[in-house]
């Protein structure tokens, strides 16, 4: 809520000095309507943001209602989620300040209408809350630039405009300087709403030049404006310098609005993005594989050497299973044939005996036994024990004691007897 209240306070402080130029009850009426939504009672600003929400809800309902306006009951209905006393207070204040008026379309029929000015005022306030003075200043400068080019513009009006801008720049500078001398946290939070980008400063100087060219007699006013612009630029730089020197290694990222980041991310070229990391060096990937972890990975892998629990099996032969494992039924049957050939009716056989043939043939058999072992649908197991038997002159010349066996029939599917 603080930016809002500050804004309003600034505006209120400004008001008396503007009175000279804009006199009369009508002007004060505009002021009151502008800020009615933020008024707590007719003398002060709200101290609870919810009160502004009530006003906003009401104004939105008025916009929907059209020229008919709203009855009191209808207003109460749209504000039903707020307590009665909050609603009553709001309506009283809004009425008192002229944001909501009573109308009598027919005798004995009381209705309410809202003022256009209050809605505009609220839009302005919301915008100020969102991005502070920045974009407002852009709008103001753009508007003044148009005015200066307008043939109907008088020197008097131009001076008023320039003086108004000079005052705004000075007030901003004062606030920035105060912040710059305060805590870093507050500066970080407030500075982006207050400080001027180079773009704003350029625009202001352009406007200043345009006024001076068209009305050379306004040179004193323009000198003032110039000084105010410089002071503002200076205050902005000082605030930025303090922040860029501040501790913290990511905190200043908050100083650019999210939209700026998003725009950059979406529009920057590959080279512009990469330039951010120019000059940074990082470690090359260097994972470590200790020999024992390699051993563990193999032993604990999907193909574990120790006997594994028999996988759950369907109660009827399920040809679909072979599809699941990526091989076709022919391959499964081939493995089964090899396994049965090796077992030759026995339930288990030493691998050593099986491999007692020329090595190329032996390793083909071994690969098949392994595949048979791994196939979840086949009832075979290949196990190795530790140790190594050297067989001089044999082929291969070494072998680990291993056993190829039929797994116990744990279900009707484990009927190795279907093999040829």
């Amino acid at each position, binding site marked *: 809520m603080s930016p809002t209240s500050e804004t309003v306070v600034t505006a209120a402080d400004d008001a008396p000095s503007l009175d000279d130029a804009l006199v009369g009850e009508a002007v004060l009426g505009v002021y009151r309507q502008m800020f009615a939504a933020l008024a707590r009672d007719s003398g002060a600003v709200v101290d609870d943001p919810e009160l502004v929400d009530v006003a906003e809800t009401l104004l939105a309902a008025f916009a929907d209602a059209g020229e008919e306006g709203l009855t009191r009951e209808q207003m109460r209905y749209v504000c039903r989620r707020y307590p009665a006393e909050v609603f009553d207070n709001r309506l009283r204040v809004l009425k008192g300040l002229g944001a909501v008026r009573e109308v009598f379309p027919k005798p004995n029929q009381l209705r309410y209408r809202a003022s256009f000015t209050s809605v505009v005022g609220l839009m302005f306030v919301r915008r100020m809350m969102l991005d502070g003075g920045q974009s407002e200043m852009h709008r103001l400068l753009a508007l003044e630039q148009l005015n200066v080019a307008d043939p109907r513009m008088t020197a008097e009006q131009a001076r008023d405009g320039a003086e108004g801008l000079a005052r705004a720049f000075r007030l901003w500078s004062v606030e920035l300087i105060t912040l710059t001398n305060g805590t870093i946290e507050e500066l970080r939070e407030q500075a982006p709403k207050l400080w001027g980008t180079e773009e704003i400063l350029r625009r202001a100087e352009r406007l200043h030049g345009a006024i001076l060219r068209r009305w050379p007699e306004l040179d004193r006013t323009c000198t003032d404006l110039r000084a105010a612009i410089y002071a503002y630029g200076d205050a902005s730089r000082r605030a930025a310098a303090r922040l860029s020197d501040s501790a913290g290694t990511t905190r200043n990222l908050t100083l650019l609005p999210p939209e700026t980041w998003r725009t950059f991310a979406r529009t920057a070229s590959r080279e512009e993005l990469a330039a951010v990391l120019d000059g940074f060096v990082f470690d*090359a990937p*260097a994972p470590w*594989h200790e*020999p024992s972890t390699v051993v563990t990975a193999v*032993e604990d892998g999907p193909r574990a050497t120790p006997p594994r629990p028999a996988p759950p099996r369907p109660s009827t032969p399920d040809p679909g299973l072979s599809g699941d494992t*990526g091989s*076709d039924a022919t391959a499964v049957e081939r493995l089964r044939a090899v396994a049965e050939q090796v077992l030759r009716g026995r339930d288990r056989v030493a691998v050593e005996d099986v491999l007692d043939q020329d090595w190329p043939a032996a390793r083909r058999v071994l690969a098949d036994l392994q595949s048979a072992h791994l196939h979840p649908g086949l009832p075979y197991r290949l196990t190795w024990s530790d140790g190594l038997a050297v067989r001089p002159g044999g082929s291969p010349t*070494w072998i680990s004691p291993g056993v190829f066996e039929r797994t116990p029939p744990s279900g009707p599917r484990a009927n190795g007897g279907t093999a040829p």
Partner: protein
Amino acid sequence: MTVDPHVLARARARVLGVVSADASAPVPSGLTGASDGTRVWLLPQWPDGATPALLEEYDTAPMPLDRPGQQRRVLAAALRCCWTKLDDAPWPGGEAPVIDVLEVYAGMSRGDADLARRWATGELRRLSDTGWLLLDETAGTVRPGPRVALWREESLASLRDLLRRLPQPVREDAPHE
């Protein structure tokens, strides 16, 4: 502002990961050279023969690795094929056809052998990127990478044992789908 060139050379080796030079090039001090006769690779030196495996004792997680088990199984399969003289040190080892490694790996894995081969190919590249293997994709061959030279002789017994038990590549009649 000038950095000691030896210090810089060691830092550079860490940034680049797998750096090799002509075998005749001098190895910067404080680095170990693993030479295959033609090229020499620069390896870090760690104090007192310790390796990063020490982290485990201290319950400290190393840099995360995707599918470490799979990567290590592929490394085992590759070593099965290219570290054939198991009584020697794994480095520099010999050259083996990639296709053999893929077959050994497929034989170690459950399920779709084609899929297993594809996974293994990716791991071979990662192992090669990190210096655990040297992969020559054009020639279709692979050999041990210089980082295996960092393995301490005392830590190799169980790995040798494992590799002896792993079947050799069989590809002639491997079931293809």
